[in-house]
């Protein structure tokens, strides 16, 4: 996820524009070095083992290396080797940005140093960025004080990456008391203090999003497309609820619903814009 995090940092600090970042994400796609692929190349894992680990990761909020060690597929030395190899992800990003003329190599290098300093990442722990410090880096991106909301957004970010697309960055969250949405997919997480959660997505982006999640080509916004989006928030909230339950917080979920042309009113409605490879969506949270 280094590419997403650092891309987000470059955007937030006006080193590159949103349009340029989109182009970077598009062009970097084919050159991403995945841990699984490196492990296969190194002869540490078979492709079947990598698929098994990836499938487990879809259900549990665990890192690739963590699962591989648990399954005894990799030992610590092998994991360290592939993590070291994967560090070159930042070189691929650098190459993509510099080749397209968005930054010079000096500007990239200076921005990277600034990024490490701001996120308290030492040179030694740089290789842990994609693994050990993911949550902390996401928390730093989210300028909201409430820790539970930060955790919720971080998991949503990771689930977008897991189930929809690697191309994702978020903009500064806003707080409103009223807003109208074309399509709103909402679900309440019920515990001592309920959490209202929803996401909103428009027309063509909804088609792209639902096609990606369902694995089927969806060309019209029909009952099935709506159902796919409701199931996405249901799955995400299910995983969030499991995380909460593991921390001793009991929660239940209401049935997800879709509202069309709905005006949401309330105190402190947080809206977090997500810009993804399949379009724009807004995550909405009210505590």
């Amino acid at each position: 996820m280094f590419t997403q995090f650092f891309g987000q940092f470059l955007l937030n600090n006006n080193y590159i524009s949103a349009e340029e970042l989109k182009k970077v994400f598009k062009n970097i796609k084919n050159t991403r070095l995945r841990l699984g692929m490196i492990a296969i190349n190194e002869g540490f894992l078979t492709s079947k083992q990598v698929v098994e680990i990836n499938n487990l990761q879809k259900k549990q909020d665990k890192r690739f290396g963590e699962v591989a060690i648990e399954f005894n597929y990799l030992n610590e030395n092998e994991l360290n080797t592939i993590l070291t190899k994967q560090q070159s992800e930042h070189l691929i990003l650098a190459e993509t940005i510099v080749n397209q003329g968005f930054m010079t190599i000096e500007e990239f290098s200076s921005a990277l140093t600034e990024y490490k300093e701001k996120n308290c990442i030492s040179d030694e722990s740089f290789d842990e960025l994609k693994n050990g410090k993911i949550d902390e880096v996401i928390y730093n991106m989210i300028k909201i004080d409430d820790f539970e909301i930060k955790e919720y957004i971080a998991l949503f970010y990771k689930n977008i990456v897991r189930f929809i697309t690697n191309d994702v960055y978020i903009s500064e969250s806003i707080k409103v008391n009223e807003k109208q949405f074309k399509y709103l997919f909402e679900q309440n997480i019920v515990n001592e203090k309920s959490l209202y959660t929803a996401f909103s997505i428009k027309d063509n982006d909804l088609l792209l999003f639902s096609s990606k999640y369902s694995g089927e080509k969806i060309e019209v916004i029909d009952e099935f497309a709506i159902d796919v989006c409701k199931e996405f928030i249901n799955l995400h909230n299910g995983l969030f609820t499991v995380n909460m339950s593991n921390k001793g917080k009991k929660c239940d979920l209401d049935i997800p619903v879709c509202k069309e042309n709905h005006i949401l009113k309330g105190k402190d409605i947080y809206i977090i814009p997500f810009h993804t490879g399949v379009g724009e969506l807004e995550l909405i949270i009210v505590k």
Partner: protein
Amino acid sequence: MKILICDDSMMIRRQLKNMILNLGDYEVCEASNGEIAIETYKEEKPNLVYMDIIMPKLDGVGAVDKIIKFDPKAQIVMLSSVGTKENLSKAIKVGAVDFIQKPVEEEVLKNTINKFSKGV
């Protein structure tokens, strides 16, 4: 062997049905909530049931409770994104035989079908 899929999500029912049909010559019936699942169970007498938890009208745990009262030998596997200890415990208490965390993989589905198809 007949399998009943009960889930309020059309996408999940479609995906599960495709996976099951891909795994072998099984007969599949569907229900979109707990109430329909009970009626379908009584009519179709499936050998295995995959049951979601969060559903409108009657949830999965309520439906399992009623199906088990009708047929104590019913084999029902819970299938949910909310794989909490509390839900697992509730489901087992009313008589579910297993629990699968969503998203579902074909391999996991295959294992449960193999496990509960013995004697069918």
